[in-house]
């Protein structure tokens, strides 16, 4: 038997953020009474979702609400999310409800780490969100990555041109390079990690942010 542990979204985001991957502002609501206090830190609209290591497909479970425009809606959303989670998986361990800033996106990307049985850790980069499985448009490099490797990974994607600017919009390619290097460092320093999925990483003008992340140890 293989012993694995999946870090929940909040811990996963904190871990990748601590290495320098840009992550959307996220906090946990342990109690619905905290909503007003959180609203002073994270301006509306919000994204609210369940925080449970046992519920991986949060949207399917009815455990994501967006956009949440104000305190009243937030209170209702928190109740619904918790109820749906219990209905979806009665024995799921639930830490609370996540509150995250809403992030607009021009492109959804995936950044990640895998472990190959013959080569060890690899970093992946590609088209993210719902397109991951459909197009499998990803590039791959072995850890550790050099800056040159990270640039090559971006450039060899069929959609590479986008990162040099699209219809007058300019994206921060350097930020992507740095994020890939950050994941490489993270994997190098933590051999126990078997998988990291930063997906989607929402890219928009001026810079991107991860809105979901999973780390499997």
């Amino acid at each position, binding site marked *: 038997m293989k012993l694995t542990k999946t870090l929940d979204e909040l811990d996963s985001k904190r871990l990748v953020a601590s290495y320098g991957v840009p992550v959307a502002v996220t906090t946990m609501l342990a109690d619905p009474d905290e909503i007003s206090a959180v609203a002073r830190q994270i301006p509306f609209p919000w994204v609210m979702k369940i925080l449970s290591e046992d519920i991986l497909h949060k949207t399917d479970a009815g455990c994501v609400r967006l956009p949440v425009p104000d305190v009243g809606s937030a209170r209702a959303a928190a109740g619904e999310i918790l109820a749906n989670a219990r209905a979806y998986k009665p024995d799921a361990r639930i830490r609370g409800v996540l509150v995250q800033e809403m992030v607009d996106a021009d492109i959804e990307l995936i950044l990640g780490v895998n472990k*190959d049985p*013959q*080569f*060890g850790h*690899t970093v992946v980069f590609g088209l993210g969100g719902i397109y991951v499985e459909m197009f499998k448009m990803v*590039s*791959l490099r*072995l850890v550790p990555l050099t800056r040159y490797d990270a640039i*090559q990974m971006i450039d060899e994607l069929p959609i590479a041109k986008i990162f040099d600017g699209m219809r007058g919009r300019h994206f921060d390619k350097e930020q992507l390079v740095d994020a890939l290097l950050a994941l490489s460092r993270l994997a190098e320093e933590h051999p126990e990690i078997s998988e990291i999925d930063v997906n989607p990483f929402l890219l928009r003008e001026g810079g991107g942010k991860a809105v979901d992340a999973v780390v499997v140890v």
Partner: protein
Amino acid sequence: MANLDCFFSPKSIAVVGASNNPRKPGCIIVGNLLQKGFPGEIYPVNPKEAAVLGKAAFPTLSEIPGEVELVVLITPAAMIYGVMADLALRMERRGDIKALVCAAADYGETKTAEGVRRQSCLLETASKFGIRVLGPNCIGVIDNRTRVDTTFVDAGIPADAYNTQSGISVISQSGSVATSIIMMGAARPEPVQFNKFASLGNMTDVDFIDLLEHYEQDKTTSVIGVYMEGYPDGRRLIETMGRIARKKPIVVLKVGRGQKGAKAASSHTGSLAGSDATYDAAFRQYGVIRTDTFGELIDTMISLDRLALPRGGNLYILSQAGGFGIYCADNVEKYPFIRMPKLARATADTLAGLLPPMAVVDEPEGYADITASASEEQHAQSLAAILRDDGVDCVILITITPSFISQKKLGESLRDAYLALPEEYRKPVYFCIMAGEYVRESRRILEQAGLCTYDTPLEAVRSARDMMRYAGYLAAKEESL
């Protein structure tokens, strides 16, 4: 690091299972050693023959009076127990054998209990006496300089070609692929002799890394070619290849890309093919040139051995034939890192002065059509003019020789014009003189002068692309230091 010199330059070779029957591999091995003029002692071992191909034979290994450094085993696998007992006897008395090539198959690769037992008998006896083992299930080694050839391959290379030397050293995991690479090299307009050649088979002892490191240190090796199915420690393999690739190019054909192929590899040499996407990424990341076809593998190895690396990404197409010129341009354009440059004014003027009036230069940029009326000299002089242009890093020359052109004169004119250039202008030229047997003479003239010819523009583009990519990798690594 393991010293593999004992395989490539032994003082003496014993062939256990040597035979006078020309249909048996034990006969061809002795024949190859004799024909290539191996200068050391050759000891055929056969209990029923007094001599094999005129060489005195011995009933067993232990009865050979002289010193034995390399043993080639070509006896049926079931006999391994007796042969190893006799080898042990010899080692206790003489202790002279340093290396063993086990050419026979039906060992561990069959994954049967008996096959595995045979393989461990072989390996245990050998390692007890510190003998390095290549195989089983392989064709052994060739060294074109020391005239060692333990293979049972008759590639049909004319004896006078044995003296041609190259810097290409090859490692093949499969014996039949090794055989075919040797035969395909032999079938080129001018036969290619590989510098060193080793077939790995089951890799019980000597493996990819041992041989890569041997070729890394070998001063006569300038290019390393690899056919591989799988290797258990991909990380160590790629780090070794990456270190070597900074000094010498490594050209790889790696199979087992899909599920069926990977399964076939597992039963062939017992290898785990691994994830192809990871291998592919690893090769790119560490500067290893991956090829898709055997033709490309051989073309690119030869090109890297003979030609300088292009100094930049500017490729000029000089064509005497519109159709193939277009075909070539189509293939060049697939690779965004290859540019087709406009010639300098002075070069364009020179070409206008020497080409037929119908010729078209730089339409489109990076492309000249010298037309079917071009003479041998016009081919040669226009090539020289373009090579002198500082904006050009390499040239693909295409010609479909019409009957009024002399094959001999064309080859000689191109060769002489090229060799007359100052060294800085002897940039890589990928010659496509088409087609088939008809143009063999011009191709031979160029190949004998150390230049490279290709069957069609597609092969030329692939080798040019491989070299540009490798040059780009080296430049980027240099920059990041």
